[in-house]
């Protein structure tokens, strides 16, 4: 494998990282919306958020990408691969982050909400100033865990036709026939991104577990 092929892989790694970052960034507000709906007092809202989460947790990510890809086209939205894949991953992230943060919101002791109520705080202030800051801390290890899942998941964009790290590896391997070397290097690149994140998440989890004891 020549220098330019390694450079091609590194350049594609950039697309993997951009795709992950954009999907995560869009996924945060959408996921927050899902989590708030899921924990709201309104039954239809809760029902809607629960079904949304069920659909994304009960189907393969690969199929979600395909359905979004062809579904958007049918809706008359002529999107390029980049946009439709981003929409797919954002919707996916909204459901998973929504479920993670629902758990975190429910893990904040009920007395906190009641105390905020007693102080006369309305819903938004109660959430923004009292519940969510505590929930964020609780949810951090799981959120980092999902970020790792998301980075690994972006490899599936290659099947839809988006050229990121895995697709770039496939292109190179089809030229030089050194599949093991190429996929070994590609795997190592993912590992170098994901492993530090996993270690960070595990460390936070231990820290919080020790603090709550």
């Amino acid at each position, binding site marked *: 494998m020549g220098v330019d092929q390694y450079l091609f892989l590194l350049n594609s790694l950039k697309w993997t990282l951009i795709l992950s970052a954009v999907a995560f960034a869009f996924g945060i507000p959408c996921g927050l919306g899902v989590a708030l709906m899921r924990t709201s007092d309104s039954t239809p809202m809760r029902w809607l958020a629960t079904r949304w989460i069920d659909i994304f947790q009960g189907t393969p990510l690969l199929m979600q990408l395909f359905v979004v890809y062809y579904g958007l086209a049918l809706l008359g939205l002529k999107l390029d691969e980049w946009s439709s894949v981003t929409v797919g991953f954002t919707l996916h992230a909204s459901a998973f982050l929504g479920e993670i943060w629902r758990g975190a919101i429910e893990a904040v002791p009920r007395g906190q909400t009641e105390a905020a109520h007693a102080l006369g705080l309305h819903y938004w202030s109660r959430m923004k100033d009292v519940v969510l800051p505590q929930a964020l801390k609780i949810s951090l290890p799981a959120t980092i865990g999902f970020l790792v899942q998301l980075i*690994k998941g972006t490899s599936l964009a290659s099947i839809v036709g988006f050229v990121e790290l*895995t697709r770039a590896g496939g292109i190179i391997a089809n030229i030089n026939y050194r599949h093991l070397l190429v996929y070994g290097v590609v*795997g190592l690149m993912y590992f170098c991104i994901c492993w530090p994140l996993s270690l960070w998440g595990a460390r936070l989890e231990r820290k919080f577990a020790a603090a709550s004891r």
Partner: protein
Amino acid sequence: MAYKFDFGAIWEAMPQLLAAGLGTLGLAVAGSLLAIVIGIGGVVLRDSRLAPARWLVMSFVELIRNTPFLVQIYFIFFALPLLGAQLGQLLAGLGLIARPTNYLLIGPWPTAVIALGLNGGAYAIEIIRGGVQAVPKGQWEAGAALGLHRATVFRLIVLKPALRAIYPSLTSQFTLLTLTTSIAGAIAAYELFSEAKFIDSQIYKPFEVYFTITVFYFVISWFMNQLFQAFARRYFSYPTK
């Protein structure tokens, strides 16, 4: 102009899709069984006194958990035939077989089972290990004090609470593995996604085809969850205090 959905063509392809659904279920069951075997074996090695064995299992778990399944399955798909060729040479060299034979040219479907088993196994190791640690040491000691053999203590005292502790995470891992089987289509293993690609190439109805199999996956995972919950209610709903 509004698009007119055409599920009629899908209806005609339904027998093919249902058959491919069996391919998916087969992958899920075989992959999960292999994952359990790897998971239990991995835990035994992970907590053994041999430092290299412990190190090997830990590296395996970290490596699998921090790389995409798609890259893993491609790697295994290309590694197995090479490994088989080497193995054939070695066995022939030792005089165990007459001429070098590649035993690992096994086709995409068994390759996918191996990849799913290795991937699921890495997660299973972490989960099962948590279950073994969840049973207090005093339970083992109490059993020993009653004069029971270590294996008997495990079977009668430790096993059920340990299973109960890991049951939710283990079963959701099985569901996840079932959904992951869709990626096996990337190496043309016979399952729903590869069959959907084939049908789409004939009738040019991508949305209808992929939407239909997405519903299939949803039904499969929903049914699995119901089954797992019913089993848990039957066997694990006993008071603990």
